[in-house]
């Protein structure tokens, strides 16, 4: 079955210039393999669509049951340049929680 990401993971997001980083952390380490399989850089890039103008990179932190995503050119120029209400991408991590993953019970 499909479940939204928020059922199995939590996120925190921030910025480095025009790049947003989203840390995704599983609540239960048994779900980490599923996260690795389901939450690819390609899927995250497709999910955000026009929000992310550049590439999406993924890094693995198995010790924390976490993935770190870098969303390049995702903040309208970033920092002081951006005209957005959220120039530092603090809410992008929450947006990702909507993405649906295949979950096998």
């Amino acid at each position, binding site marked *: 079955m499909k479940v939204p990401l928020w059922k199995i993971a939590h996120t925190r997001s921030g910025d480095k210039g025009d790049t947003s980083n989203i840390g995704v952390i599983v609540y239960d380490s048994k779900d980490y393999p599923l996260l690795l399989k389901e939450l690819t850089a390609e899927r995250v890039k497709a999910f955000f669509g026009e929000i992310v103008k550049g590439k999406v990179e993924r890094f693995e932190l198995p010790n*924390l049951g976490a993935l770190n995503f870098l969303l390049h050119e995702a903040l309208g120029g970033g920092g002081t340049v951006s005209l957005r*209400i959220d120039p530092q991408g603090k809410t992008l991590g929450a947006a990702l929680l909507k993405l649906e993953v295949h979950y096998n019970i």
Partner: protein
Amino acid sequence: MIRIANGQGFWGDWLEAPVRLIEQGPIDYLTLDYLAEVTMSILQKQRQTDPNLGYARDFPPLISRIAKRILERNIRVIANAGGVNPIACAEAVRKVAPGIRVAMVLGDDVLHRIDEFLAKGYEMRNLDTGAQLKTIRERIQSANAYTGAFPLAEALATGAHVILAGRAADPALALAPMIHEFGWGADDWNRLAAGSVAGHIIECGTQATGGNCQVDWQNIPDLANIGYPIVEAEPDGTFVVTKHSGTGGRVHSDVVKEQLLYELGDPKNFIAPDCIADFTTIHLEDVGPDRVRVSGIEGRERPTNLKLSISYANGWKAIGTLVFSWPQALQKAQAADRIVRNRLETLGLSFDEIHTEFFGANACHAHLAAPSDPPEVQLRIGVRSENRKAVDRFTRELIPLVLSGPPGATGYGDGRPPVREIVSYWPALVPREEIKSSIEVLG
């Protein structure tokens, strides 16, 4: 074991936090992080208008408030409050707290050396875009090197009560007392990495103790009285993250994980001035209520370059808003946006960007937001241009819609929005040998 607390995650953080950290339990070192990426340029502008400014002005009154207690209990303060004018900051501290000895770490300010660096062939390309610094040379407003923990440790060795730096790197503030107390060497990579990770965990204040935390946020206790983070550091590089008992918030491995991931790039290459830390080696363990033990951290040799924080003038911007109410709140706001854009075009004004958000409908999450019929929507239009006059004219184009646009516009109480100069951040590298820190003591 030594206790290192952080009482300020940025300039503007809670004024009571450092006082409470001192009053509510034991600490040995109080770190205070005042500087964000563009803070240096704001401070540089302040120094241009008044040579006695250019530092975090909250800092001297804070030291005045806590002076008696830190002397009684021998608590040492380490802060990057000096900004672009540590000397003026130190003098201001001495004026309001004459019994306090202040050691300054100087040498991070390289604004006057940019041409020298360019002449030596350092391109100082923008680490994000790859562009060459010479393309913005005339617009540079400030330039500072992120300096490491060893100069701060040297300042601690003078015995001063307050260690005051300019652009010391955030994690270095917490690493410095470990180097000072435990005698760690400059090539002690694993332990330097551990101290840098400890600094990263506490540098954003309460983001390590339950603030801005998604996990069970409704049940995190008493955020009104949230405790700021404390690291209990051991000589072997292991440490416990905690907070004073009786304070609000929560310290748990889930919370610490969120902060470890905050503003992280490649986890195997967390680059600090003093080492490179590998975040994939961090081991967390919940060892008691509000206690997380951190161990296993591995590091590698420090980078050959130091990072520069350069800021430069980059045009003008303004953001204006109008509120439209139900019914058809979003449709009205969209209609008003079309009218404003039409008029800007008719006026022949050109902008690098016009960006519209419908606050209440899609501002944070754009097309990912679910469709809804909100009771009100705020139209939020921003423009950006090299041409200040174009931006200024834009700020006059929203309010007329109260009478001439879709029905039910309000929320224009503050009148025309201000035109702001954009100061952009330019991260770059120089060889570390170019940056020589020095220590000066007042008092």
